[in-house]
């Protein structure tokens, strides 16, 4: 058996038992487990090949690339091989832009209706359940000048390396906090790229808080890896610590990185600045689908509310992997497997006893994989000044070019949350749909109001969560009642026995 590749919207079936969104470790595992249990599964993913961002490009990667990226990257192959051997349907380069309860014109509502775009055409299909494995994105890093060409995320440089064998040339500075910062620095140095400086913005107070979890961390897989990386990076490049402020400068493109640290300010000439301060769940699809979420202070982000079987507040929707709160690649694969088993149980393919029996060893491995996470969360929690910009000229919403100063100046109008702010300033209304400003806007408002971000809330995210061409939407089949609601009448086909009438 092997997966069935779906290449056009018309190749999609009318219905599937299960939709999985995202082909990273969580989505691949969820889809594989569910398909092995006998469910008809559709896996939709935006990229051209499976693996998500963490295993991006691995099916096409050369031996040299794999060697360069190490065995954590190569681990993705087993997950992909397992998925490709199932009977699931796989739609690469497909965007899922809507998930809503299916409410037929007659009969009872059941399952979900899903809007998918593929190869320039849109389709509405029905599924009984959905697992959202939309992964994570890099947390916004709003510093003055961060919109200049020449400033990219650390993750983007890794993607360029994984998919195209590209490494930075010219003067390169890597700045921020989080495990990926040093991993990327080590990978780039290993690939022969020059890294002029690593600017570490980890707040000093974090080390003390993280210490409480250091025993678990030392015993975890992360511990040894982390120590090796630090040693390697320190040997080959300059590391600047005790950083208080960061700024990018240049005319039309980046020319220097201005670093203020204890002891002074330095202007580092640079052609490329790679920013990173951790990853946060990619929430747009779960929010637009109505899944409840809450503020997670340890990870300084909103995370969806899910139970031990990945079930959300919406009856037919589950969330697996980093999309449900950051748990890393290994944890995500195991989490996805649990979500797949739960789907098979809910759709009658696994008994409760069988589900629990299969889940037990997976849960044990998940506990091991998550060991050390608390330490990482505490150590790499980005400082307030790097999450909540203090300088008024800092752009917060990149699409609509709304600054921190404008947001703060609008507060006296009585703004309670991001949706009112959006109405005043258009922040969050551009094509990225708030992905690069949502958390920042929430936290600025919370700071100004002196309340917790959870009380301020997040943007109301609505479908379509990805831009869809109007002609794609217009070409969707419409029900008679929908046409009547808009046009006021339904044109009947002309025939002898049914003369054309207007209702």
């Amino acid at each position: 058996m092997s997966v069935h590749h779906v290449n056009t919207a018309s190749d999609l079936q009318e219905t599937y038992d299960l939709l999985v969104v995202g082909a990273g470790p969580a989505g691949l595992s969820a889809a594989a487990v569910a398909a092995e249990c006998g469910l008809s599964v559709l896996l939709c993913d935006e990229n051209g090949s499976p693996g998500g961002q963490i295993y991006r490009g691995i099916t096409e990667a050369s031996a040299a690339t794999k060697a360069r990226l190490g065995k954590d990257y190569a681990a993705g192959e087993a997950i992909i091989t397992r998925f490709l051997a199932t009977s699931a349907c796989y739609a690469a380069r497909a965007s899922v832009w809507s998930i809503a309860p299916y409410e037929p014109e007659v009969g009872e509502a059941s399952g979900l209706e899903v809007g998918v775009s593929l190869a320039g055409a849109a389709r509405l299909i029905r599924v009984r359940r959905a697992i959202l494995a939309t992964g994570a994105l890099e947390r916004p890093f709003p510093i003055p000048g961060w919109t200049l060409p020449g400033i990219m995320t650390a993750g983007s440089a890794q993607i360029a390396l994984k998919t195209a064998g590209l490494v930075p040339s010219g003067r390169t500075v890597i700045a921020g906090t989080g495990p990926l910062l040093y991993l990327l620095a080590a990978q780039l140095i290993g690939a022969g790229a020059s890294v002029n400086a690593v600017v570490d913005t980890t707040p000093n107070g974090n080390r003390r808080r993280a210490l409480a979890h250091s025993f678990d961390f030392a015993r975890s897989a992360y511990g040894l890896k982390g120590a090796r990386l630090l040693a390697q990076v320190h040997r080959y490049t300059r590391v600047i610590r005790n950083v208080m402020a960061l700024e990018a400068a240049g005319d039309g493109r980046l020319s220097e990185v201005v670093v203020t640290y204890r002891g002074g300010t330095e202007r580092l000439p640079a052609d490329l600045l790679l920013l990173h301060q951790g990853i946060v769940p990619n929430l747009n699809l779960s929010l637009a689908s109505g899944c409840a979420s809450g503020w997670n202070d340890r990870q300084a982000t909103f995370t969806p509310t899910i139970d031990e079987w990945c079930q959300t507040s919406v009856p037919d929707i589950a969330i697996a992997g980093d999309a449900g709160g950051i748990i890393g690649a290994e944890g995500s694969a195991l989490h996805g497997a649990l979500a797949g088993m739960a789907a098979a149980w809910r759709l009658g393919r696994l008994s409760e006893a069988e589900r629990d029996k299969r889940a037990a060893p997976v849960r044990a491995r998940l506990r091991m994989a998550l060991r050390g996470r608390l330490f990482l969360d505490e150590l790499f929690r980005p400082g307030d000044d790097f999450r909540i910009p203090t300088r008024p000229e800092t752009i917060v919403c990149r699409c609509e070019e709304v600054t921190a100063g404008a947001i703060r100046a609008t507060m006296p109008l009585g703004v309670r949350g991001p949706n009112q702010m959006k109405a005043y300033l258009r922040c969050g209304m551009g094509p990225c749909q708030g992905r690069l400003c949502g958390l920042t806007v929430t936290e600025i408002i919370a700071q100004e109001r002196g309340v917790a971000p959870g009380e301020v809330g997040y943007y109301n995210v609505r479908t379509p969560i990805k831009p869809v061409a109007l002609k794609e939407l217009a070409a969707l089949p419409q029900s008679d009642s929908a046409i009547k609601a808009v046009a006021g009448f339904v044109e009947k086909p002309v025939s002898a026995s049914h003369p054309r009438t207007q209702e």
Partner: protein
Amino acid sequence: MFRRLPDHKGDLVTFTFDGTPLMASKGDTVAAALLAAGVTRFRTTPVSGADRGPYCMMGVCFECLVTIDGRGNRQACLTTIEEGMRVETQHGAATYPTGISA
């Protein structure tokens, strides 16, 4: 800003950017191909006209919007380069031919 590692294997693909012929490696995204060719500005913003280039390379930031074969608002980081592709800087908001004459 970026260079290709010598051990990266891939057939060559030719395309144009603002009319200039460039080479890419088969399988590249349009964004990777442009970065490898030394292009840093992909578009100007509709709000202030400021220059922008790719930021996330994974489809979430929409900073890499370009015009491809006459169609605007294409995400360069999610589109695979193809032989003969005509890629152009997107100036401000994308415009579409409506086919309606005044």
